[in-house]
């Protein structure tokens, strides 16, 4: 299996669903999809192509939209599914039914970008501390950290 074979099969199986297929470097394939077609594409990758290993999910804040990249790998190459969701409607289907190992990455996305992952088996907070204020999503570009004023207990007033 080489890059060209994966690209040919992607064109044949996904057809119109694959908006854009690029191969910028050896063993790196980027497939752009609509968010509705994500589950179909993950299912196709897993069952037909044998990409069972999800390395991670990367989220990028593009301003108006969030870009998500699902990095899949097998013994021959690495396929990255790219999708975009609008910032004011950040909803994403969970892929845990297909790839159970995605759960921690999806929970991380919920914490860091405020993306709502639908049908996630376990949607609790993973990384942020208890009592973290609502609506603060650290990896959004407009989020700035302000260090709270330091108060030394029993110190000078």
């Amino acid at each position, binding site marked *: 299996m080489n890059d060209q074979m994966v690209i040919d099969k992607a064109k044949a199986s996904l057809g119109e669903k694959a908006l854009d297929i690029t191969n910028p470097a050896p063993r790196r394939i980027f497939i752009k999809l609509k968010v509705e077609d994500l589950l179909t594409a993950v299912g196709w990758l897993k069952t037909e192509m044998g990409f069972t290993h999800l390395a*991670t999910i*990367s*989220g*990028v804040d593009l301003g108006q939209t969030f870009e998500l990249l699902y990095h899949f790998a097998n*013994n021959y190459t690495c396929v990255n599914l790219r999708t975009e969701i609008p910032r004011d409607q950040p909803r994403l289907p969970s892929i845990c039914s297909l*790839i*159970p190992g995605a759960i921690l990455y999806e929970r991380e996305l919920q914490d860091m970008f405020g993306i709502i992952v639908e049908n996630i088996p376990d949607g609790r907070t993973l*990384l942020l501390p208890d009592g973290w204020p609502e609506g603060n999503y650290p990896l959004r570009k407009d989020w700035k950290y302000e260090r709270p004023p330091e108060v030394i207990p029993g110190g000078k007033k």
Partner: protein
Amino acid sequence: MKFQIPIGPQHPALKEPISLRMTVEGEVIRDADIRLGYNHRGLEKLAEQKTWIQNIYLTERICGICSHSHTTCYVQGVEKLMELEPPKRGLYIRTLVAELERIHSHLLWLGVAGHEAGFDSFFMYTWRDREIVMDILEIITGNRVHYGINTIGGVRRDLDEQQVKRILDSLDILRQRSEYYKHLGTNEPSFVARLAGVGYLSREDAIALCAVGPTLRASGVAMDVRKDDPYAVYDEVPFEVCTADTCDVLGRTVVRIKELFQCYNIIEFLLKNLPAGPVAVRAPRRAKPNEVVSRYEAPRGENIHYIKSNGTDKPERLKVRAPTLGNYAATIQMLKNGFIADVPLIFAAIDPCICCAERAVSLVDARTGQEKIISLNSLKSLSLKLSAGNKRKREAEWPL
């Protein structure tokens, strides 16, 4: 009758503080739940405010054991963004440090495994031999932990003839010692009996839960980024991917011992074929808008960085996924249907981390809500006592 036991955030076997809440029935763990973030440093956000060069030293500080893994993964990604071609000698030295780091990490892990299994002389032997590797690393790079040898476009220090000779001499000692560890199991059946059957992770589960590194390879899946997606000079170096099919802690030990020998061969090959020439090229300060996915096989497993540039001297986004995060989902599976007494061993098996501080585990009675604190040492002696009379594991054989 089900009980819930919280373990962590001050954790028995991991350096990183994580919290696990386990539901137990008697001595058997039925369910485990994980909570992270106690040591979250906001590193991905911080990286967006630092320059490309500053980020090398930031990524180096992600981990104290596999610091070189993160810098190499980052640096080779940035080199692609800047369209740089590092010189061959630089790549050879980079790979050499990577393999030395793998040896020191695996020796450290073997010691921890011996310690958790109650075989402390093994722990002292392996850690003594680990000093040989640490000394070599110090000679090459000037540092023992954060080597600071990577830079964008190559490495920062060159090797001389004397250093090469010194490393080759030390390799002989390490080979001899590892040969001894390999055969140790035959004379030490209690060690093998303690490891066999503990922390079972089937091949299907390992694949489904996206486990990485020795944990995945011990479940019989031959996946190694060095082979599948060769970076640096791994496409020129002959080596084998080591696997085991016992799917337990014994398998993970075997994989790591086998990998040690592969490391020695790789280092010998690298030193004997070291090309002449410069070690680094000059790097620009900015990178054109682009993106890159960089993968690396760290001692603990696959490490992946996603880097996006926007034309300035700072990254737009740096996503880091360290191997341990990839293994957490699998750890929960391993803990299920295991014994409380095996918890330290199973944890230690996914992740080679120093456990020098005395940590505590609190046992909560679900009926009364009363907590009982027991120290790691008493938990360990409990584990030794429990496994002593186990008949099934006594027939286990050392597979090497």
